[in-house]
């Protein structure tokens, strides 16, 4: 099942990067855009104006659930047919 592996804020790109991993090493990245792409004039990354409305935990939960739901369905299929999971 997927779970939070690590997260960080990348100031250069303005992304809150959240990495999910499962026990087989599969990865999925959630990237919350908390900044605009760098300004052509000054080169800086400016923050978005809706940061107070962002809920990273909810985003992780939502994506995690979606990923794990599909994975559960596939594992159930494997179990039903006695398949080895790699």
């Amino acid at each position, binding site marked *: 099942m997927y779970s939070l592996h690590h997260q960080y804020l990348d100031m250069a*790109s303005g992304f809150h990067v959240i990495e999910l991993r499962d026990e087989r090493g599969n990865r999925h990245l959630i990237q919350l855009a*908390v900044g605009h792409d760098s300004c052509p004039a000054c080169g800086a990354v400016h923050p978005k104006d809706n940061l107070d409305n962002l809920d990273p935990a909810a985003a992780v939960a939502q994506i995690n659930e979606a990923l794990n739901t599909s994975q559960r369905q596939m594992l159930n299929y494997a179990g039903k047919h006695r398949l080895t999971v790699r």
Partner: protein
Amino acid sequence: MALSVNLAQINSAAKGNSDLRETLTGMHLALQSLYAQTGTTPLSKIDAVAAGFTAPPAPSQLAVTGANGSFTVSITTPQNASGAKAPSNATNAPIYQELSSSPVANFVSGVITYPVSTNTSYVFPNPGVTLYWRLRSSYNQQNWSSYIAQPGAVSSGLVSSAASGSNLSLNQSNYATVDSVANGSTATVRVYGLGGVGTSWTSILGNSSKVIASGTIMNVAYSTNGFVVWDGQKYQLKPQLAQTFPDTWVPVGKVSVIANSSGLVLPVIHAVVTGGAIVAYQIINPGNGLTAAPTLTITDSSGTGATATAVVAAGAVTQVTPGSAGSGYSGTPTVTASGGVSGGVAGGGGATGSNGGRLYADV
């Protein structure tokens, strides 16, 4: 000449003069020894007639173009030239061409001289280079015409992906899908593989491949075009992508993030009919979330020919400009607005460019 004199001749010439004979004999033997040691032979007199001067041909014409990372050279010989220079070389004698290039206009450095040939066309692959070109011609490779130069510098340009096949050493393919879905007031861009959302995808560069994690990019503003690249650690979403970018970046795809249907409200517009013609329009509802002028279609049970154009500002229709007034309209023609979204179709975001396995440069 010395070796043509043998000892008998010396003896005859110095007859009665032993001192002279000994001197000449000594010189003869010394020269013989010297020739034996050095392996040289005496010079022979040459009485051949000097070769006549062969004038160089009239200048050929040089045309160099650059594209797709190559220079294409075309040489027109005098006999094939048109205009004031023709006809020259009426006998169609072979003309040797010496082509050279340099990164500087005066050819004082970096000069490359290509092998002399009678060929009149060449293709030199040399991507990303700007060079000056010149040419001189000869009938015998000894007497050359003066140089003629290609006007100005020529750039070979970069090799486009379309000019090469898939999966060549410098070409890149990927098997990612990039799309976007509406997520309330913002859009979510998804990157995934052949297995569907949440599955990794494979990038192939030349003969090597790597598996890259799927991704979900959230809080993306609507109405923006995005170029998605993988920078080795995470995805980048750029409104514009430079022609050159770091080698470690992997182009993934292009996506248009447009408002979904729930945020898009098409305008409601009524037509004002006078004497069977539509003379004005009344904006009942200006709409919302419009990113382009909607198309207005006017239908009626009897009238025809009327046209009108909507003007959009800040996501809503602010004005309807009448075109043709038409004729034969009843009192209640219907004005139907459609479209109103730029960069795609209404109903959710969607990829506008498929990442069909080619290098990004084609986008």
